[in-house]
């Protein structure tokens, strides 16, 4: 991939950054009236359990980022028919599925803390669940096609169609679900176009740790993605080199 990135010890830095984020997220005290810079404001009803926000929101963000990434690489494959784009697309989708499962689970835990039930059918939970279905469908499709080139084409097309239908989720689900189902008892969270957005009050420190966590997770995602791509690229190169030798 890129020699420059390998030379710069970004993984070590990422490790330190992430550790710092986790420590701060879990250790900084939550008090009703934060006076010191290192204190978080308390969220009534949730207290310490609100810390899940540092982990839940990044996973949801990553599942969307991975999906868009998968779609973009899929389009590149359709244009060039170069399988290296397809392995980038599939690697992104695989990570997207992982983070989507994490997001659904952490979201359900948060729902349990906030409203007492794991599943609420509020717009956010439904959106992330639908994204999970799409990922599942994507991999079901991939596993059902044996010919590599066809698999890549069909998967890319499905990603594109899903991408086109996505905006409809963002607008339809909030609009329709709010009236189909009753409002949750305690609505602490808001919704920005179907994506989770915390409405709880954050002070400067909390916001900083939150954004740092977002950055850390994105870095970890990128690292995992490059690992997968490199492994798959090596395997592809080895297989095609075998035929070139003749």
């Amino acid at each position: 991939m890129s020699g420059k990135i390998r030379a710069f010890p970004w993984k070590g830095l990422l490790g330190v950054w992430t550790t710092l984020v986790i420590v701060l997220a879990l250790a900084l005290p939550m008090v009703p009236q934060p006076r010191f810079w290192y204190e978080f404001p308390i969220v009534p009803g949730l207290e310490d359990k609100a810390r899940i926000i540092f982990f839940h929101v990044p996973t949801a963000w990553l599942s969307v980022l991975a999906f868009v990434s998968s779609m973009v690489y899929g389009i590149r494959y359709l244009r060039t028919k170069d399988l290296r784009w397809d392995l980038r697309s599939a690697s992104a989708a695989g990570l997207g599925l992982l983070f989507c499962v994490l997001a659904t689970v952490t979201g359900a835990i948060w729902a349990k803390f906030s409203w007492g039930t794991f599943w609420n059918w509020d717009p956010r939970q439904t959106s992330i669940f639908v994204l999970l279905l799409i990922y599942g469908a994507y991999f079901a499709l991939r596993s059902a096609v044996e010919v590599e080139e066809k698999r890549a084409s069909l998967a890319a097309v499905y990603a594109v169609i899903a991408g086109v239908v996505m905006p409809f989720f963002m607008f339809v689900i909030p609009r329709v679900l709010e009236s189909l189902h009753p409002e949750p008892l305690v609505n602490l969270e808001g919704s920005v176009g179907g994506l989770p957005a915390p409405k709880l009050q954050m002070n400067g420190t909390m916001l900083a740790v939150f954004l740092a966590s977002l950055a850390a997770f994105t870095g970890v995602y990128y690292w995992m993605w490059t690992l997968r791509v490199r492994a798959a690229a090596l395997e592809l190169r080895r297989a095609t080199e075998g035929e070139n030798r003749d």
Partner: protein
Amino acid sequence: MSAPVHTGRPSWIRSALAVFLKDWNSELRTRYAVSALLMFVLTTIAIVLFALGTEGAPPHALAGMLWVVIFFSGMSGLARIFVTEEERGTAMTLQLTAPPSAVYTGKLLFNLVLVYAVNTVAVLLFFFFIQGFEVRTVSIFLVTLFLGSTGLAVMATLIAAIIAKANTKGTLFPVLSFPLLLPLLLAVIKATQLAAEGAFFAEAGGEFQILISYIGAVLTVSYLVFDYVWKD
């Protein structure tokens, strides 16, 4: 064997119509799709009937049930036009003769006709057999039925083309279709509920907007990506 003078320039519309007529005539002759589909609709409605028992269900729930029946009927019958071509090996015959967009258009037309026919029957059966299902604003209901059926056919045709090229076609079809049909299903269920309540036509305007833009978007994408699906 030089080029003939009397057959004229190839017409895309003639190709698309030829594809449609081929499927139409084939269906008239064998009647595979229609009979299976109608039996499926009948069976599903019977199941709903028995499940509801004597108590019935509130009109809101019945609106959802109607579209559940329509969705599964669609899943049972809309993939046929592509799957049979692959199974019989005649896909290559079409690839050899007709332009991809004409193939897609012809088959979409067929699925549209199929969906309109089957859904009309499903709705009539629903009114007939399911107690408590009533529609107060008929205009909303008819428009919803039309737009919903159209959207279902448009999306299902494209997904059908995709799964026809895969292995486990039968189970894959609903798995791929459901998440992408969800915006459509939510909108039509909401609109049907409005019709059941007796809302004014304008109140369903938002849902109609969603349905029309959904159909437009999926149709556009279909024409853009169909080549990649259809050609090997």
